[in-house]
């Protein structure tokens, strides 16, 4: 079967919904469809907690937001993109206010803002500490009023259909029926989010398997800056549940096993009773996660049954502040850790949280493949450089979701007369057959899916963790090669067409293996330390060789090749990153 739309969105989270609305408003006659492997309100945007940055107060400027973002990214951000981002972020956040987002308020009814890590001014808008949840539901509910937006809820995209250098659709499986369908379009926008699940310990939901990254990579689009993986410094042990940075911006302390605010030993400033911008607990995430590893090496962390931890101390904030500003932190601690932050210390350790890298796009979300766009965490524009600042990802998905939507709408409008080529339909048919055969073939294979996945995750942590080396990364490359071979003999026990989650998990694992390979390959090639990419064998930043984005491309024979693209510098020449001084 074949369906046709003008623009297809793969993924229905914050970026996908914002893009869909932008398309509907740009050209109401375009037929839009969102394909998502979960109902849109289940998307992982829902888990974002702390807030969304956008300059709003009189004492703040766009240039300061740009500088914080660029220095936070260790000068790997494209500064023209950052300038566009900081300019449009406040408009986008305001638009969400007009659509009903329940932003927390000042007594006079204006929108409230809070400090955040690496930010020099208060500019983080928040809806208590469920900001992503409220943004997602506001976007989803608002999207329901546009009749031109159709949805394929719980459909899984297996491949992009490309011909003549143009992406013209996808093949997807309907989870409920198992039906496989070719869906063509003039433009496809990838909004599938990140890939935290390639690591064993992550804040990311189970659905974050790098689908869009792998789809683009396989179609021949390059992935950019994949070596930059963000560890958030404060995850709950065992579950990996995130304790928001807002806990520190409201005044929380990070202490080691001696009750000592250890960040003062890592060039992050002096401990003060109240939070200080760009200092100590409000330093950037890469530096805080690295400080944890140093504390561990010095024997100053606390051992638990789920590994070493430090503690987050919120006790001095008092119940009222905790309840009004960060109630979800308390709810999560009580529910999952059986502790009350009003009177107990919260055990925390660094946890994989976000991909700075992703599908290479320009500032309008366009990839090098005509007709293919990407926005949100799946994409790398790049505004986040080598380390994203907390509260920049939510406005990023709005700004670049809207930009990608408008660009794709324009492209689709210009293509209106063209139908999908015969070659594309044939490729769709091939993929449908391939999936069908793969599934019905009684394979007699023995390898357990979960075993391969667990070993991949372990290989990633061992080889490409907070600190990496040429040696560890080479081992990662080798292990992943072996795992890709073993993947070809995994057993699928479930032969049902109806809601077959084992089949989907196998497709996801094959995506993750490709994405893992791109991460490790890019990390091995970059022989310097910058932001979240710390090489013990190359411990300093090297602007001579690496003031550049990595672009990893996959050759038809399956091998990958890394090239570099210079960073765009407009007004902020590379300098030392200074925190706490």
């Amino acid at each position, binding site marked *: 079967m074949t369906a046709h739309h003008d623009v297809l969105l793969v993924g229905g989270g914050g970026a996908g919904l914002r893009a869909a609305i932008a398309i509907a408003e740009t050209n109401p006659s375009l037929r839009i469809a969102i394909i998502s492997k979960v109902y849109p309100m289940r998307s992982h945007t829902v*888990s974002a907690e702390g807030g969304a940055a956008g300059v709003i107060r009189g004492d703040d400027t766009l240039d300061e937001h740009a500088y914080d973002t660029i220095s936070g990214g260790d000068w790997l951000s494209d500064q023209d993109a950052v300038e566009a981002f900081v300019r449009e972020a406040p408009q986008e956040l305001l638009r969400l206010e007009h659509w*009903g987002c329940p932003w927390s308020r000042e007594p006079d009814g204006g929108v409230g803002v809070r400090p955040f890590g690496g930010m020099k001014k208060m500019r983080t808008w928040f809806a208590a500490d469920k900001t992503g949840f409220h943004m997602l539901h506001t976007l989803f509910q*608002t999207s329901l009023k546009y009749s031109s937006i159709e949805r394929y809820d719980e459909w899984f995209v297996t491949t992009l259909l490309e011909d003549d250098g143009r992406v013209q659709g996808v093949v997807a499986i309907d989870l409920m029926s198992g039906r496989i369908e070719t869906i063509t379009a003039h433009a496809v926008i990838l909004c599938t989010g990140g890939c935290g699940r390639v690591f064993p310990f992550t804040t990311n939901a189970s659905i974050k398997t790098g689908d869009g990254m792998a789809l683009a990579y396989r179609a021949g689009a390059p992935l950019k800056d994949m070596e930059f993986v963000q560890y958030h410094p404060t995850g709950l042990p065992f579950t990996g549940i995130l304790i928001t940075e807002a806990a520190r911006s409201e005044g929380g302390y990070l202490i080691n096993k001696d009750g000592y605010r250890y960040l003062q030993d890592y060039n992050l400033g002096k401990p003060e009773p109240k939070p200080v911008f760009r200092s100590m607990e409000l330093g950037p995430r890469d530096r805080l996660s690295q400080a944890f590893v140093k504390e561990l090496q010095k024997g100053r962390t606390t051992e638990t049954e789920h590994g070493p931890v430090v503690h987050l101390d919120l006790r001095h904030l008092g119940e009222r502040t905790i309840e009004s500003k960060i109630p979800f932190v308390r709810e999560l601690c009580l529910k999952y850790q059986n502790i009350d932050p009003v009177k107990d210390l919260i055990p925390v350790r660094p946890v994989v949280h976000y991909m700075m890298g992703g599908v290479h796009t320009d500032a309008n979300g366009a990839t090098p493949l005509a007709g293919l766009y990407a926005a949100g965490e799946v994409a790398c524009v790049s505004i986040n450089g080598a380390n994203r600042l907390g509260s920049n990802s939510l406005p990023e998905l709005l700004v670049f979701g809207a930009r990608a939507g408008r660009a794709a709408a324009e492209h689709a409008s210009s293509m209106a007369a063209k139908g999908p080529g015969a070659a594309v339909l044939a490729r769709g048919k091939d993929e449908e057959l391939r999936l069908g055969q793969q599934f019905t073939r009684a394979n007699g294979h023995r390898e357990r899916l979960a075993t391969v996945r667990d070993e991949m995750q372990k290989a990633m942590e061992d080889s490409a963790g907070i600190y990496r080396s040429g040696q560890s990364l080479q081992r990662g490359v080798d292990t992943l090669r072996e795992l890709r071979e073993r993947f070809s003999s995994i057993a699928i026990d479930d032969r*049902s067409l109806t809601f077959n989650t084992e089949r989907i998990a196998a497709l996801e694992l094959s995506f993750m293996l490709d994405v893992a390979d791109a991460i490790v390959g890019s990390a091995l090639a970059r022989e310097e330390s910058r932001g979240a990419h710390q090489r013990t064998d190359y411990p300093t930043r090297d602007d001579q060789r690496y003031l550049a984005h990595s672009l990893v491309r996959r050759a038809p024979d399956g091998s990958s090749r890394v090239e570099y693209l210079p960073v765009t510098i407009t007004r902020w020449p590379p300098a030392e990153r200074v925190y706490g001084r």
Partner: protein
Amino acid sequence: MADRITMQVARYRPEIESDATFQDYEVPCPRDWVILDGLNYVKDRLDGTLSYRWSCRMGICGSCGMTVNGEPKLTCATFLADYAPGPVRVEPLRNFPVIRDLVVEIGDFMRKLVKVKPWIIRDEGDVRPLSQGEYRQTPAELQDYKQFSMCINCMLCYAACPIYGLDPKFIGPAAIALAQRYNLDSRDHGARERMEILSEHAGIWGCTFVGECTKVCPKNVDPAGAIQRYKLSAAVESLKAFFMPRGA
């Protein structure tokens, strides 16, 4: 505490079975495991054919609602050890058609959601341009509707609702709570429009404030309170309409 527990899991594969059956699985039961960890253990180690939905594992995405020992629960927020020594019985949410194993069909709710117009409606000619900044809303005005904005669409209230169980046309607790979320928002002018839609639907007058929906809500939303408030304002509104027809 027992170190293992038996999970009795409802199985239903429409191609194989015409009725649901139960399958027993023995899983570890450490203190910090939730029901969902037990199901993931089954899926990864014992039986790859078990189907269920889950995603965030932190009680915010709303995917993993199931019936645990007869009660609707978010399985990521319900500890296995609380059911020791077991067995613990896990079934799909009630009041919904079952697609497969623990997966239910929620298309009915998704269609009802659109009907209550869950978006900001402004009077014509009264839309603020972005250049004029935000709509002012005091913390007290925010408080008026905040509670109803916390719904994660997990469907536990529909599974617990005796009215929805008898009459699937009933628009249901979460959808009404969401309508109230917008009706009570100081930025919204759509209450009357939503009232007309809600009044058309049978069922709401049948809700006798049983309050099961509020009891099972994992996010303290109080849909039962929303329904009572709605009934009251609907009654007032219909009186008003009687004396003062619309447009007058």
